[in-house]
């Protein structure tokens, strides 16, 4: 039976992992390769790197990181952040990324999603949707939640599927950073609206939130950052908890 996936997310800037990762005896809390290796050993099903490098001068550093990680960690790797062109996608795939996540550029240039899916296959194109509740519906935001687009999140998800997205990474901007759990209503609405897998993100504060994301939110995968990075919970511990609650996982 297909397992629900747990995906730790690493924020990277200027070639270093930020927000701190608190593994026992980690020599260098900012070393992306060592952190990726630790998550791999802990049983992470995939890894996502979010490049938040501000300066364009240092954007190629993510390519070196992916090359290094892909040489010794043999699970799927997704990279997002600042992906604007087909050439950006090509560079990331060549460096060893298995999937590329497109966020703001999907809104400003939806054709990018279609062009990339046509050229490299839907399996490697993830569209990241940042959604915020506005009145009686959810609206798509870009630029890290600062810019409203006027787009309805459910309609947008369907459009991205039709353009060739192979997967959707859905983040609730209302919940992100709150540790109060996923926006389950949003997650479920999107998951039921499309046939492609949904990764739920934003708001995880404990292991029950992961269970709720799958059971109530109907997510196919759950992404989390801080609960794993700061050592509050291990990936293995999270999987055991999910299994105890009747969710199929890879142990």
């Amino acid at each position, binding site marked *: 039976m297909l397992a629900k996936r747990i995906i730790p997310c690493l924020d990277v800037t200027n070639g270093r992992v930020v927000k701190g990762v608190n593994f026992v005896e980690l020599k260098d809390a900012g070393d992306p390769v060592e952190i990726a290796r630790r998550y791999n050993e802990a049983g992470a099903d995939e890894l996502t790197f979010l490049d938040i490098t501000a300066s364009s001068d240092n954007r190629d550093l993510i390519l070196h990181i992916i090359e290094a990680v892909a*040489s010794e960690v*043999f699970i799927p790797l997704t990279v997002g952040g600042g992906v604007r062109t087909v050439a950006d996608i090509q560079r990331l795939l060549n460096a060893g990324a298995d999937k590329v996540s497109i966020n703001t550029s999907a809104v400003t240039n939806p054709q990018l999603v279609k062009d990339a899916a046509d050229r*490299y296959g*839907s399996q490697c194109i993830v569209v990241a949707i940042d959604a915020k509740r506005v009145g009686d519906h959810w609206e798509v935001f870009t630029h890290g939640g600062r810019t409203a687009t006027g787009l309805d999140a459910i309609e947008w998800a369907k459009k991205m599927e039709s353009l060739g997205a192979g*997967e959707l990474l859905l983040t609730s901007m209302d919940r992100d950073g709150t540790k109060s759990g996923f926006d389950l209503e949003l997650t479920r609405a999107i998951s*039921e609206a499309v046939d*492609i897998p949904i990764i739920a993100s934003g708001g995880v504060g404990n292991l029950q939130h992961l269970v709720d994301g799958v059971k109530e939110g109907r997510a196919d995968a759950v992404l989390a950052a801080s609960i794993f990075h700061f050592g509050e919970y291990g990936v293995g511990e999270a999987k055991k908890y999910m299994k105890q609650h009747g969710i199929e996982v890879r142990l």
Partner: protein
Amino acid sequence: MSADIAVIDYGMGNLRSVAKAIEHVAPSAGVVVTSDPAVISCAGRVVFPGQGAAPDCMREIDARGLRQVIVDAARTKPFLGICMGMQVLFEHSEEGDTACLGILPGTVQRFPHEAMHDAGGDKLKVPHMGWNNVHQAMSHPLWAGIEEGARFYFVHSYFVQPASPDVIAGFSHYPFPFTCAVATGNIFAVQFHPEKSQNDGLTLLGNFVTWNPGAAESACDMSRAACA
């Protein structure tokens, strides 16, 4: 000098991880990623990966003049097909109504929309993406050291239906049983991605690197002698 292992590059997806994973399990093997028919025909072993859509794959294979060398390699030397590299070994794919290489009798079909519900009635997504159990339908040197039911990483919307059940080496459930590994003679092919399936995937690739499919090996040695 001929390569130990040729990974066929026909412009379909990230082949770097396939090559990296093989180098990881066989550091002393010479692994080349190549679209050169001469290099492929002289290699000791051939890996045929691929991602994307079947019509594009077949077009790219022919655009690079690789059809004959792939057919020859599949006949004569240890040959590992991965993902799209498994699907196009069959006769026909429903994806874009595409005629494929026809090395193995059978067809490729999409997960039918009406069947995609689990026992509880919940919708199952397509692509089939993630880690699923692989059940071994035959004993085979490439399964050595891999537990029955071990999980491998999948990402695909189509699956193969071999004409003969004799070639089925492994199957998974989504929600019905589908063939995810086939084996015949010197060919082994898998729908999942061993290069992305952590330890069990690396074990399978390691098994491929040392696999000696018997009679086919001597034909391979002969072809290599011609290359020297």
